[in-house]
């Protein structure tokens, strides 16, 4: 008679199908944007009253990549011919409803979530159980970008470079070196950005899977390792046998904490000390996320890709399945209503 030894059941969240599902869900996440041209800056003879463009933007994308779409709309519907000719996209910049400048090099999902949590901390916070997501209202300015507060030129090329820089940092945090990123052929590096530009999940992940760890199939804190790369002559530079990477743990998960209207927190957190999101938040914000408050309402919550994440979500899993396209797990901390 065979008996089954005590064995951890494979975590339902770590099967290849489940990993692919959550990566797909993250990729397909969108947020509503309402882009309104500053009425004072409309060129003469513009179709006033129509200078507002609504769009459902991918969380993993970037504002400079939306500019062509916005521009087409404005040229078709709002500006007359003369107006359309004087418009210079390199002078465009975005402002939030509260007057804050929008960092165009941040992923759109992050811009949305940081706005949402900053609202949570304000006196006029809406009830946290509102059903439909509220559009993020952005004012589009057509000229005179405040160059002391904004990076120069929101061009797609500059955005791509910033994106590559974030990927490189994420690579370094995971492995202690940037060999996986630098090991990618130029074609593949460009392919990552093209995948975002075209919003093509398969094109992006075909390359990203070479550098992103996957959670181990068994639950119980096994070290994440990159998903096996199909043998191909092109990828020989950075292909590693999976067991070699499983042996050396991922050093840390690239993660940053965004407080409502506050600074961005980033610290190296070794995977041994911090396993779950709860551990991670307690390590940085022990007063907001105390351990022993079972009978009292939570003070704060954490949003990842717009989803309120439970404290027992594993950081390694979040890093593998719900990170942004730039490799980072952006945790936006909001304050619970009174």
């Amino acid at each position, binding site marked *: 008679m065979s008996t089954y030894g005590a064995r951890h059941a494979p975590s339902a969240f770590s099967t290849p199908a489940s990993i692919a599902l959550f990566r797909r869900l993250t990729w397909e996440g969108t947020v509503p944007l309402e882009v309104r041209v500053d009425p004072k800056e409309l060129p003469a003879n513009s179709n006033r009253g129509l200078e507002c463009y609504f769009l459902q933007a991918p969380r993993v994308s970037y504002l400079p990549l939306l500019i062509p779409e916005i521009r087409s709309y404005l040229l078709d519907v709002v500006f007359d011919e003369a107006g359309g000719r004087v418009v210079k996209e390199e002078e465009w910049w975005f402002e939030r409803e509260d007057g804050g400048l929008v*960092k165009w090099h941040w992923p759109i999902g992050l811009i949305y979530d940081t706005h949402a949590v900053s609202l949570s901390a304000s006196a006029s916070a809406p009830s946290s159980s509102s059903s439909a997501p509220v559009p993020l209202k952005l004012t589009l300015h057509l000229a005179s970008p405040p*160059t*002391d*507060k*904004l*990076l*120069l*030129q929101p*061009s797609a*090329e*500059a955005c791509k*470079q*910033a994106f*590559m*820089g974030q990927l*490189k*940092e994420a690579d*370094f*945090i995971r492995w202690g070196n*940037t060999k996986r990123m*630098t090991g990618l052929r*130029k074609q593949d*590096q460009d392919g990552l950005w093209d995948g975002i530009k075209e919003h093509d999940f398969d094109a992006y992940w075909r390359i990203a899977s070479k550098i992103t760890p996957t959670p181990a199939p068994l639950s119980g804190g096994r070290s994440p390792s990159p998903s096996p790369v199909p043998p191909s002559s092109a990828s020989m530079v950075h292909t590693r046998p999976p067991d070699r990477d499983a042996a050396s743990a991922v050093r840390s998960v*690239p993660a940053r904490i965004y407080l409502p209207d506050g*600074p*961005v927190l*980033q*610290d*190296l957190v070794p995977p041994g000390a911090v396993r779950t999101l709860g551990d991670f938040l307690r390590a940085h914000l022990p007063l907001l996320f105390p351990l022993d408050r079972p009978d009292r309402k939570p003070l704060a919550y954490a949003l990842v890709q717009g989803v309120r994440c439970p404290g027992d979500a594993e950081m390694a899993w979040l890093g593998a399945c719900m990170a942004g396209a730039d490799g980072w797990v952006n945790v936006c901390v909001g304050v619970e209503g009174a």
Partner: protein
Amino acid sequence: MVEEADDAATIPHRSDGITSRQYIVYSPTFQVPVLYFTVHDSHGTPLCLGDLIQTSLFKPDSLPPSEITSFGLSPESSPFPMLSQGDHPTLGTPCWYLHPCETPKAVGEIMAEIQRPEWTQAEYLTQWLRTWFAVLSGVVDLRP
């Protein structure tokens, strides 16, 4: 661990009237100090990259052959930029910064040569920082 230091220095250049602010900030990612800086003309307009590297902040001919765009300087030998823009880690304002990924190696090589076993941790770290400045000054002129 090397401590984070914020160092803002204003260097008015008499003939051109430019202002440069320089910060040394600890990178939580690469765990080394990184130089962040801004350069503005007398009207407060930030200098474009092409003009910036011609100022006295940079040692002439010290930069490798590189591709220069409006937003970054990338050596021909490398797939990644050496100098680009980013958010200042604590101020959140836009700055130029020198990419730090080669720093640990460059400083490490020198430290391996000069390190003495009798150094305390404090002496080691001080010397590390001195060496870091030395490596940095191969490219950037920090003298007032």
